[in-house]
């Protein structure tokens, strides 16, 4: 499974070093260093979609009026004071030549930004927006967005793009350096936004506040994660909220983006040893048997988004969306009536568990347990026990996601549980069918009620539950007097096939 093989790579990519939030401060737009000119006080975001153009920490401040600059205090341009917060605007800093948006009518056209350190050609300058590279000079790269706004990167080195290339926001354009037409300046990115303003034409607009917002967004570290597997067997991956590292992130699963879209959640709560070191804790994986409601032979676009535990915003996971095309399969087995309390106790949902197939002809079995009694096997970490009708039935830990069970959260089976007789293996996943408006769970290991005709409407007791033969009497599984009928074997084969069917998702 390629997804599993590359998961470590995704973990590394998703956790590339980034700045930390705790100490970022900035002065307001237009507040220039005293004596360096008159800034433009402007709260407009001229580029609200901006991704911060440098990877990692960065320091926006003047190259001319800070330490080591032409008009700044004497010292080294690499002085720590230049690589410290707060940020300070230097758009409209004193220069010659037209700048119609500057109070003086002239001024500095953009914002100077130092990267995390003074080392040149090290820090990545990245695309601030999706766009096209429209010019590359000896030290400049121009990136033009769909709306015609141009983002200028000056003093660049190791340029990684070419003119005409389309780039996605975040793509590396080159490295922050000090190139300046055969000479050198301080190591920094001079960043301009050139935009067509209706009353002026193409002008350099104030970039400072857009940069502040973009930088804050990089610091906010939203939840992130990866969809490592999405096929007709499982939907699996991991999700993590760096700002709440102990929280289990809920992942929103949406099939087909339309108003009637089915949406469900799966909790990234499962232990996985490969996550421990990178994330600092192991229990951030999610895994669920693929949603049976989509097993209708048509293709469904499935999107997975991590839900930020802080503000409930959604962040699409890497490798999402996937397209699932899963063939329906004929339900087989005994259908066991499911009461409302069982739906909640077993965390069942029609999105994940309901197979859109007619199952009215199946025999009716015993009512499904209304409470979930699941236990870890104290001596076999690969097995769980489910207490059902006075028996213990085995379930492989690897199939626990088919029942929305997190094995790590289970108590160990007590002697009382282990002393129960061992029944048929528990079904490998929940398969919910609806017959005449009533929910049932299919069970290959359950025995049909002999008194109920498989095709007749089942008689109902006053409380809506099945009436009929004594269930305990007919539950003597393992008894030679009650051999597993052939249809049980049939169901086993069909479910096995469905689980092995790997209709490889196509990335969009």
């Amino acid at each position, binding site marked *: 499974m390629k997804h599993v093989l590359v998961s470590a790579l995704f973990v590394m990519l998703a956790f590339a070093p980034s700045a930390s939030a705790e100490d970022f401060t900035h002065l307001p737009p237009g507040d220039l260093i005293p004596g360096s000119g008159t800034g433009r006080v402007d709260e407009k975001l001229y580029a609200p*979609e901006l991704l911060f153009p440098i990877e990692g920490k960065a320091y926006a401040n003047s190259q001319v009026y800070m330490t080591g600059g032409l008009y700044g205090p004497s010292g080294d341009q690499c002085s720590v004071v230049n690589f410290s917060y707060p940020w300070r605007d230097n758009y409209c800093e004193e220069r010659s030549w037209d700048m*119609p948006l500057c109070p003086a009518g002239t001024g500095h056209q953009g914002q100077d930004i130092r990267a995390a350190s003074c080392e040149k050609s090290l820090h990545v300058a990245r695309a601030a927006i999706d766009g*096209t590279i429209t010019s590359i000079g000896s030290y400049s790269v121009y990136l033009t967005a769909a709306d*015609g706004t141009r983002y200028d990167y000056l003093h660049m080195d190791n340029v990684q793009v070419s003119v005409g290339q389309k780039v996605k926001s975040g793509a590396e354009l080159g490295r922050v350096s000090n190139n300046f*037409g055969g000479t050198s300046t301080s190591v920094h990115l001079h960043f301009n936004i050139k935009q067509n303003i209706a009353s002026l034409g193409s002008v350099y607009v104030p970039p400072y506040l857009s940069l502040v917002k*973009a930088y804050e967004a990089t610091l906010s570290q939203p939840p992130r994660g990866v969809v490592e597997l999405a096929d007709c067997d499982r939907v699996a991956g991991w999700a993590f909220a760096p700002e709440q590292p102990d929280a289990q992130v809920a992942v929103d699963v949406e099939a087909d983006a339309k108003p009637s879209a089915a949406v469900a959640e799966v909790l990234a709560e499962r232990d996985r040893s490969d996550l421990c070191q990178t994330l600092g804790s192991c229990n951030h994986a999610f895994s669920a048997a693929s949603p049976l409601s989509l097993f209708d032979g048509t293709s469904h676009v499935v999107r997975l988004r991590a839900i930020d535990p802080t503000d409930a*915003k959604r962040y699409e996971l890497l490798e999402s969306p996937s397209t699932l095309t899963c063939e329906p399969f004929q339900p087989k087995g005994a259908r066991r009536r499911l009461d409302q309390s069982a739906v909640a106790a077993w965390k069942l949902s029609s999105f994940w568990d309901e197979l859109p197939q007619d199952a009215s002809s199946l025999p009716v079995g015993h009512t499904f347990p209304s409470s979930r009694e699941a236990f870890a096997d104290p001596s076999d970490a690969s097995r769980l026990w489910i207490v059902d009708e006075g028996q213990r039935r085995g379930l492989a830990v690897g199939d626990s996601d088919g029942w929305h069970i997190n094995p790590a959260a289970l108590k160990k089976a007590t002697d009382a549980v282990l002393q129960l007789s061992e029944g048929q293996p528990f079904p490998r996943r929940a398969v919910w069918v609806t017959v005449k408006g009533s929910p049932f769970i299919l069970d290959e290991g359950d025995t049909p009620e002999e008194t109920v005709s498989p095709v007749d409407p089942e008689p109902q007791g006053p409380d809506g539950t099945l009436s009929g033969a004594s269930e305990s009497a007919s539950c003597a599984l393992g008894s030679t007097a009650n051999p597993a009928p052939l249809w049980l074997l049939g169901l086993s084969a069909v479910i096995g096939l469905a689980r092995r069917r790997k209709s490889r998702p196509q990335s969009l």
Partner: protein
Amino acid sequence: MNGLRAVGFSLLFLTACGESGEALERLPHEPPRAPEKVAPKAARPALIQTPSWSSSIDVPSAKELSDRARSELAHSPVPVLVVAEAKLLRAAILTTGPHWYAVAAKDGGLTVALHGTRLAYDYPEIPTAHGRSTVRGRPAFFTENEGIVSASWVENGVAYALDLECFDRHDARCHGAEYLLTLAEKLRYVGGEGSAR
């Protein structure tokens, strides 16, 4: 080119795309990234010009363009101006977007970038102003930006900008407006998607 005439504006509101509904489209082989883009969303009033098109294409200049640049011409939503110097024309790389075109060329220690867009953001609080320079008979702003000299002007509602960068920052052509304005005098119209209409 003087025959070109602006015929109208349409007003629309561009909204930053929401992070919740968009596919994270990726280029082939591009490493996937965490969805970290969460800039504030704001509706920004944008004007889109519908330019009128001249039939008087400068055929000799158009012929100097590479086949690739010529084929890209048809995708430009605004009239394409180029600097009519043979070497710059032959080196020109033309790119287009939904509302703009750009052309870039390097020659003799220079990088010449030209850009025209029909989409403008309309902020009523920003008063109208005109540059003190002149390009193609229109008022133009001239500015110098870390060794890059630029002129911008509006022609038939399309905002053009011409930028000149020198490989050697001491190159006199990138100091002051003189050489840039000389190049601007050589701008010629070579086509665009409306030129065949």
